[in-house]
């Protein structure tokens, strides 16, 4: 009985997990930390480790997204981008979009 119960629970958890994954919005705030943006741009996204790195809080989501895409692809390679290029393989387009959207919500 117990075994059956735990199997049923497992199945329902698995079903719930797979069903809800595609509709879950990605958490930009969490990605900002796990993808290491936080290391250089600061916990509040406006205290960069070097004054020549940009503040990102409140940035236009489209602008931020486009810069990420261009730095990742190498289309943009000027300025301080060498420091960022090395970690851009950690994010895909959807994740960059989620981070950019979240940055736009900050003050």
């Amino acid at each position, binding site marked *: 009985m117990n075994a059956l119960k735990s199997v049923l629970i497992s199945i329902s958890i698995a079903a719930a997990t797979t069903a809800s994954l595609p509709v879950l919005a990605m958490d930009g705030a969490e990605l900002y930390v796990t993808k290491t943006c936080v290391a250089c741009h600061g916990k509040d996204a406006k205290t960069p480790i*070097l004054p*020549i790195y940009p503040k990102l809080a409140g940035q236009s989501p489209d602008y931020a997204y486009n810069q990420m895409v261009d730095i990742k692809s190498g289309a943009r390679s000027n300025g301080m981008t*060498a*420091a960022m290029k090395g*970690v851009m393989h950690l994010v895909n387009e959807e994740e960059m979009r989620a981070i950019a959207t979240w940055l736009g919500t900050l003050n």
Partner: protein
Amino acid sequence: MNQRHLFQVAILAAAVGTTGTLWAEETSDADRVHRAEPVDWNKGGGEQDEALHLEPDIENGMDVYEVCAACHLPEGWGTQDGTFPQLAGQHRGVLIKQMADIRAQNRDNPTMYPFSLPQSIGDAQALADVVAYIESLPMNPAWGKGPYGPGTEEYALGEQLYKDNCVKCHGEVGMGDVEKFYPRINGQHYAYMVRQFEWIRDHKRRNANPEMVEQIKNFSDKDMQAVISYTSWQPVPEEQLADSVDWKNPDFE
């Protein structure tokens, strides 16, 4: 003077003021990464020697480590994909040397560079402190292993290459040499080691030991992958590993 021009002057001044000449004078990453000649690989002296001989304050080291943890993770385990190396378990002298080299611009690492600066980390004492803290961390029991496990043809090739080229300095299972600043390489992520090996072979990592550059100059990419994969399959002493892959550093919970 128009506003835009003023702005550019201000940027330039900021760049020179904060980071020395690295960013301001050079035009691209390629210039930095491909600088031709290796520097003296281990001059020692200066900050490196100073940090090595200071009495470390582990408590302060923990505070300093917070900034490192963003990429190397609170556990110091780095990432299996090799983006960030595992720091836990590495020899103290090697860690100090690499930090001192990155901040003296003897090892080109644009991503890490700002974190190596005195205003991020602190002075030689802080260097000694943070390294002592890292030394206190147990190693990742699930480091990134190469694609060629025991029993494969590539593993056998790697084993032979290791015996012929690596064992003299890095030791039987890759423990390195504390006294000579030879890093331990067992327990390190495969992908990270491949990248560093390639940069050393191709003269892109300027603080490499010239003896190693000479030793591996004829390695093909296949040789490189085989020997690094072999290395990544070598054991790490049990007592140096965390009890579980799920271990979390309680200092940063």
